[in-house]
């Protein structure tokens, strides 16, 4: 068999376009920077204020949860933007007409093209997030103490599910927008306006964006029962986005 499988092509896409390096770079950077920031933020603020400052800011002494929470916060905001950009470039199958002709005249179903892109992108993003989390865990353990294996496991789970949800939203956006920039715009708009739905009574605890706050609750050992609901909704919405993306893409014409 001489063919190059779609899965292998998607893996090469991550490697050769340096997108995996970009993802790893961003998440691992925040993984090392988060605990440092948590450990030394009081000293940084003190030096930034200068000697003539009238106001004294007193921060509580940092705890292990602060180091990892700092990473999760950065990873699921700035890291999320990088994720959307990387996935948008992978999933915008129709952004270039001639390339779209190449793919669409060979694949039997649109899902054969989109699902591997979604899956490999998700693996790349989650892998990078977990690599950053490991870095944050190690450095937090060194600087502030161990936040606990169970809490780290739950943090890894909710963060990963949220990022996979973001990948699915971006894949759907890619079948609605024609260009890659349009895909990025649609996906970021959806992901950053989703928390606004939380203003509706009884809705906020069901939103996937609730997962971002849930990891903080896990790390500080406070109640996070609602995370199960948000997790379930995120999984259902992820599957829904992928199915909708496959259907929208299949119906679309090549320009």
């Amino acid at each position: 068999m001489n063919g190059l499988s779609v899965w292998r092509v998607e893996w090469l896409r991550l490697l050769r376009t340096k997108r995996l390096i970009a993802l790893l770079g961003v998440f691992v950077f925040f993984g090392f920077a988060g605990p440092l920031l948590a450990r030394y933020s009081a000293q940084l603020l003190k030096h930034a204020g200068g000697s003539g400052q009238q106001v004294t800011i007193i921060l509580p002494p940092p705890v292990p949860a602060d180091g990892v929470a700092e990473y999760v916060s950065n990873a699921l905001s700035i890291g999320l933007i990088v994720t959307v950009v990387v996935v948008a470039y992978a999933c915008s199958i129709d952004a270039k007409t001639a390339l779209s002709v190449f793919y669409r005249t060979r694949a039997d179903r649109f899902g054969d093209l989109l699902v591997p892109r979604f899956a490999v992108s998700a693996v790349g993003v989650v892998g990078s997030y977990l690599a950053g989390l490991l870095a944050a865990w190690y450095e937090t353990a060194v600087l502030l103490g161990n936040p606990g294996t169970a809490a780290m496991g739950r943090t890894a789970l909710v963060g990963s599910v949220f990022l996979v949800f973001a990948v699915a939203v971006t894949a759907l956006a890619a079948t609605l927008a024609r260009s890659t920039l349009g895909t990025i715009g649609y996906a970021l708009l959806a992901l950053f306006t989703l928390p606004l739905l939380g203003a509706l009574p009884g809705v906020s605890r069901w939103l996937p964006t609730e997962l971002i706050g849930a990891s903080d609750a896990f790390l500080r050992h406070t109640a996070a029962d609602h995370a199960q609901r948000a997790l379930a909704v995120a999984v259902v919405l992820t599957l829904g986005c992928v199915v909708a993306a496959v259907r929208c893409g299949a119906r679309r014409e090549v320009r």
Partner: protein
Amino acid sequence: MNGAAVTTAGLVRDYGHGAGLHGVDLEVPRGGVYGLVGPNGAGKTTLLSIVAGLRRSDAGEVRLSVDAGRVAVCPDTPEFEPWLTAAEVVRQSLGLTARRGRRHRGSTVRDTDGSAPDPVAGVLAEVGLTEAADRRTGGFSRGMKQRLGLAVALVLEPELLVLDEPTSALDPSGRAEVLSLVAGLGRTRTVIFSSHVLADVQRVADTVGVLHRGRLLFQGPVRDLIDRFLQPAWEVRLRDGDEQRLAELLRHQEWVTSVAVTSDGSVRVEAASTAVGERQLPKAIAAADAALISLRPVDADLEAAFLALTGGQRGQRGQRGQRGQRGQRGQYEQREQHERRGQLDADQAGAA
């Protein structure tokens, strides 16, 4: 190789303002090269896209007598993932269709045993990209991408190959190679070949379809188009002084439709039909007692026939191009075109 490989019936795709397709009844014979010609905006790409299943029609239907999985399409400027090498792109083409092959037939298009020659190297050699096989396509020129576009189509061993302007970015030698390749492919499969370069279509196509403003004006053998819309012509070269005498004699012949002595001293004669010209012209030369140097038929080209059919003008290209001597025929051609258009309309009305 009998019957039609592709048939469309009353195909309509209306983009508004007259653009699109307006009732196209295409019939592409199985086997051979079908040349689709037409000016920009005629609807060629739309028609080929609908045939390939990339666009939908507003009305009408497309019937393919080949398996949809055995249709390969090559756009005019193919694009590939720039981070894959040429060989990887060909293997990617195989990999994408292998999934389809497994689903439909339980095997792949190119499931080969270990002793079989490598099809990837074979098609790359066929299109002249052996040396670039391990180069990433991001650095390829447009011409190289066109060659690779052919390779990724050929590796699938399609029954129907749709080529949209496959030579538009090639240099003269590359163009000749690809045309030769296309002509060869037409012997074993069905090729639909669209091009603005009518000489290319004339060179490789067995059948031609003339698309103009979304309507198919003519469909049939290339020879029929030329014979139907252009009058046969010959160029006679004589010893000095004899050409005026022959021209004078020919002007009084009923079968002659046009006589002109060109600037290089030869006599250009147009006849009502090929048969009568071939019989009568030698007799006329003998009757004029002229010393004959050469007598040759003037090649009737598809471009002239196309322009006659669509009501266009050869214009400046005819005056400055390789057939510059025909510039003086412009007025005659335009008059003839009007007459032929009338004849075409009458023919179409009769056919209806």
